[in-house]
C-alpha cells in the first residue's frame, strides 16, 4: 500500500505523538504537520495509522507518527496495543520512535500525568506538550510549569492547539537533541501523581468546569437530553439529504456532460462506449456520493470535536445493549439508512473492536436509500392501492414492512454475532470530555482526509469493476441481424441464463438475473438495467412509469414479492464491499458478510416466493 510508506526520506528522525484520548492530540498533530499527512490502516487491524511530516526551523524534517490515544501501556484495546507496541519497540512493522511527544491536557492533568509517568519509565526521550492551557486558565487552574519541569526532568512546552505560539516552540524543541528523562523513584505512580499535583498545582482550590456541568444538566437529562438528541439526529440526516442533493445533482450533471464532451468527438464503437458507460459513468456513480459523505462527516467530526458524541452514546447505550452493542454503534447504523458507505466509515467512532466489526457487518442491513427506486417500482406495479381505515395505504404499509424487516434482521444479526464467547463483559468506560468549540482547521483536515480516502481507494475499485461490468454487457456484440436487445447476446446475458438454475427456485427469470449484475455496482442501476433488458430506451424516471405496467403484465406477484425480499438483504453493492474491505482490512469479514447476506436474501426470497404461491398469489 503506497500510503503506508513514510512521508519523507527514511533517514528523517522518527517522532511519535502519544497521549490520552481527549488530550487534543489530533489537533496538535494537524497543527504540526498541516495537510502533509498520510492515513492508512495498520496491517491486519482496523486501527488507523497517521504519519505526517514536520518541518523544523532549520528546514530539516522529522516524521511524526500519531499513535492512537491510550490511557495506559497496559492495553485493553487494539488501539492501545499499537501504542504500547510502538513505544516499547515491539511492533513488527514499526521502528521504535527516537523521541516521544507526550500530549498532556492541562485541564485534566491528574489523569494524564499518570500516563506520562508510565511512559517515562520506558527510557525513551520525551518532550511534554502541556496542551489546553487556555482551558486550564479559564478554570483558574494554575500549574507551576518550571517546577514541574524540574521535578520530572523533561521539557514541558505549554501549547494551545488552536494557536501557533506553542506549536513553534514545540518545533524548536524538536530541533534540539533528545534527552532521556532521568529514572523515576519506585513509588507507586499514584503516590507520585498526588505529590506532584499538590506541590505544583492549585488543584484543591481550582474551580471545576462549571460550563460543562451546566450543559450536561440538559444534555444528559432523561427527557430534555433525549429530545435534544432526537433534534440533532433529525437535523443531521435532513441535511445529509437536503444540503447534499444540489451538489449531487451538480456532480451527476457534470459527469454526464463530461461524458458527452469526451466521447462526442470519438466515433461510435467500443472505445466510445467504454469511456462513456464504463469509465465516466463508473467514476460518476461513486463520486455522486461524495457530497453526502462530506455532509455526514462534517456533522460527525463537529459532534465528536465538541464532545457531544460520547454523550449521545451514553444516552443510547442501554438501547443498543439490547442488541449486544453499545451506544457508539448508533450513529453509524442510522447513517447507513442514507448509504452504507458513510455508515461503515462512521463506524470508526466505535472504539470497541468487536462492536466495530459487528456494526460494519450489520450496516448493510439498514435499508440504504439506493434501494428505494426498486421498492418504488415494484410496489407501484404490484401492490394494489388499497386504503385501510381511510388513511393507511397498503403500499406504504409494504414499504414500512420492508424497512421494519431489515431493522429487525439487523438486531437479530447483531445478537447472533455478539453471542457466546464474544459476549464477554463489555467495557463501556467512556470518557465524557469537556465541551469545546470544534476547531475549524481540524474539521477541514478531517473532511479532506475522508474525501481523499473515499475517492482514491474506493474510486479505483469501482471504476475497474464498472469497466468489467461494461465489458460483460457489451461483448460479444449482437449479430448483424439481431432481433433481441444487445444485452441478450452479451456475456452478461449468457451469465443471466447461467444464473437461472440458481435463481429459478425463487421465482427470478433470466432478465432479473441480468439486472442483478449491474445492481452490484450500484443499487439504483438495477431499475435502469431491467429497462435495458426489457429493451426500453428510457431514462430512470420514465423507466418506472413505463416499466411498471410491463412488469406487472409479465411477472407473477410471487416473483415481484420475491425480488422485494431479495433487495431487503441483497448482497451489497461493490462500493460497500470495497469500503468494508478498507475499513476492516479483512477479506474474510467481507466474504463472510457477503455470503451471509446472500444466504439471507436467498432464503427470504425462497420463503416469500413459495408462500405467496401457496396463498394463491401465483
Amino acid at each position: 500500500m503506497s500510503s503506508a510508506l513514510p512521508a519523507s526520506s527514511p533517514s528523517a528522525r522518527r517522532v511519535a505523538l502519544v497521549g490520552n484520548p481527549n488530550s487534543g492530540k489530533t489537533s496538535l498533530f494537524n497543527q504540526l504537520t498541516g495537510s502533509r499527512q498520510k492515513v492508512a490502516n495498520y496491517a491486519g487491524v482496523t486501527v488507523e495509522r497517521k504519519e505526517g511530516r514536520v518541518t523544523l526551523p532549520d528546514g530539516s524534517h522529522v516524521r511524526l507518527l500519531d499513535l492512537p490515544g491510550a490511557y495506559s501501556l497496559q492495553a485493553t484495546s487494539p488501539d492501545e496495543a499499537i501504542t504500547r507496541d510502538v513505544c516499547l519497540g515491539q511492533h513488527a512493522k514499526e521502528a521504535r520512535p527516537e523521541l516521544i511527544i507526550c500530549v498532556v491536557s492541562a485541564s485534566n492533568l491528574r489523569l494524564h500525568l499518570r500516563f506520562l509517568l508510565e511512559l517515562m519509565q520506558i527510557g525513551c526521550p520525551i518532550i511534554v506538550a502541556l496542551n489546553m492551557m487556555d482551558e486550564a486558565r479559564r478554570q483558574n487552574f494554575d500549574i507551576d510549569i518550571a517546577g514541574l519541569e524540574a521535578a520530572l526532568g523533561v521539557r514541558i512546552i505549554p501549547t494551545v492547539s488552536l494557536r501557533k505560539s506553542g506549536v513553534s516552540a514545540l518545533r524548536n524543541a524538536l530541533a534540539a537533541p533528545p534527552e532521556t528523562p532521568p529514572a523515576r523513584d519506585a513509588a507507586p505512580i499514584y503516590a507520585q501523581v498526588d505529590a506532584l499535583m499538590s506541590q505544583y498545582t492549585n488543584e484543591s482550590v481550582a474551580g471545576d468546569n462549571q460550563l460543562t456541568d451546566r450543559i450536561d444538566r440538559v444534555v444528559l437529562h432523561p427527557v430534555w437530553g433525549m429530545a435534544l438528541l432526537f433534534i440533532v439526529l433529525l437535523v443531521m440526516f435532513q441535511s445529509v439529504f437536503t444540503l447534499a442533493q444540489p451538489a449531487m445533482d451538480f456532480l451527476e450533471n457534470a459527469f454526464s456532460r463530461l461524458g458527452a464532451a469526451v466521447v462526442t468527438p470519438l466515433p461510435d464503437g467500443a472505445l466510445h462506449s467504454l469511456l462513456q458507460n464504463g469509465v465516466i459513468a463508473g467514476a460518476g456513480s461513486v463520486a455522486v456520493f461524495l457530497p453526502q459523505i462530506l455532509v455526514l462527516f462534517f456533522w460527525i467530526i463537529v459532534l465528536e470535536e465538541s464532545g457531544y458524541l460520547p454523550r449521545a452514546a451514553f444516552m443510547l447505550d442501554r438501547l443498543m445493549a439490547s442488541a449486544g452493542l453499545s451506544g457508539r454503534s448508533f450513529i453509524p447504523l442510522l447513517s447507513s439508512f442514507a448509504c452504507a458507505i458513510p455508515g461503515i466509515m462512521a463506524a470508526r467512532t466505535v472504539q470497541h473492536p468487536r462492536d466495530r466489526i459487528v456494526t460494519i457487518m450489520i450496516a448493510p442491513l439498514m435499508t440504504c436509500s439506493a434501494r428505494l427506486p426498486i421498492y418504488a417500482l415494484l410496489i407501484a406495479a404490484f401492490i394494489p392501492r388499497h386504503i385501510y381505515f381511510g388513511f393507511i395505504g397498503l403500499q406504504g404499509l409494504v414499504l414500512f414492512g420492508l424497512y421494519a424487516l431489515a431493522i429487525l434482521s439487523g438486531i437479530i444479526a447483531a445478537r447472533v454475532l455478539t453471542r457466546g464467547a464474544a459476549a464477554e463483559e463489555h467495557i463501556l468506560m467512556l470518557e465524557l470530555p469537556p465541551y469545546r468549540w470544534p476547531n475549524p482547521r481540524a474539521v477541514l483536515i478531517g473532511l479532506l482526509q475522508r474525501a481523499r480516502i473515499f475517492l482514491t481507494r474506493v474510486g479505483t475499485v469501482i471504476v475497474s469493476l464498472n469497466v468489467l461490468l461494461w465489458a460483460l454487457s457489451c461483448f460479444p456484440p449482437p449479430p448483424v441481424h439481431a432481433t433481441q436487445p444487445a444485452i441478450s447476446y452479451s456475456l452478461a446475458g449468457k451469465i443471466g441464463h447461467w444464473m437461472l438454475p440458481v435463481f429459478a427456485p425463487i421465482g427470478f427469470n433470466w432478465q432479473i438475473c441480468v439486472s442483478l449484475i449491474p445492481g452490484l455496482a450500484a443499487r439504483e442501476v438495477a431499475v435502469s438495467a431491467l429497462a435495458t433488458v426489457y429493451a426500453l430506451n428510457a431514462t430512470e424516471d420514465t423507466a418506472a412509469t413505463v416499466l411498471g405496467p410491463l412488469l406487472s403484465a409479465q411477472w407473477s406477484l410471487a416473483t415481484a414479492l420475491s425480488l422485494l425480499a431479495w433487495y431487503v438483504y441483497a448482497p451489497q453493492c461493490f462500493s460497500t464491499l470495497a469500503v468494508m474491505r478498507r475499513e476492516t482490512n479483512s477479506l474474510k469479514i467481507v466474504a463472510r458478510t457477503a455470503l451471509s447476506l446472500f444466504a439471507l436474501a436467498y432464503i427470504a426470497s425462497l420463503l416469500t416466493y413459495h408462500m405467496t404461491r401457496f396463498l394463491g398469489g401465483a
Partner: protein
Amino acid sequence: MLTLDNLLPGHSGKIAKVQEVGQEDVVSRRLKELGFIPGAVVKILAVGPFGRDPIALRVGASRFALRRSEARRVTMESQDAPSNGLDEKESAAL
C-alpha cells in the same frame, strides 16, 4: 456495602476500594488507571434514560460514563447529599 452504582444522581462519595472480579480483572485495573482509587471523590452527574444505566460521573477533573456492572466494583466509604448547586468545591476539598 455501598457501591458506586448505588449512589444517587447529584450525590457524591469517597472511594474506599476497587474490587477485582476474577483472576486478572481488566475492568478494575482500567478503573484504577482512570483515577478510581481509594480516597478519590466521585460525583454522580446523571443516569441513562433507560433502566438508569449507564451512569455519568465525575472523578477528579474527568467525566466518565460507566455501566452499572462496572460501577459495582467500586466500594464507597459514604454518600453525601448535594448541599446546593455549588457543592463542587466542597466535595473536591473533602
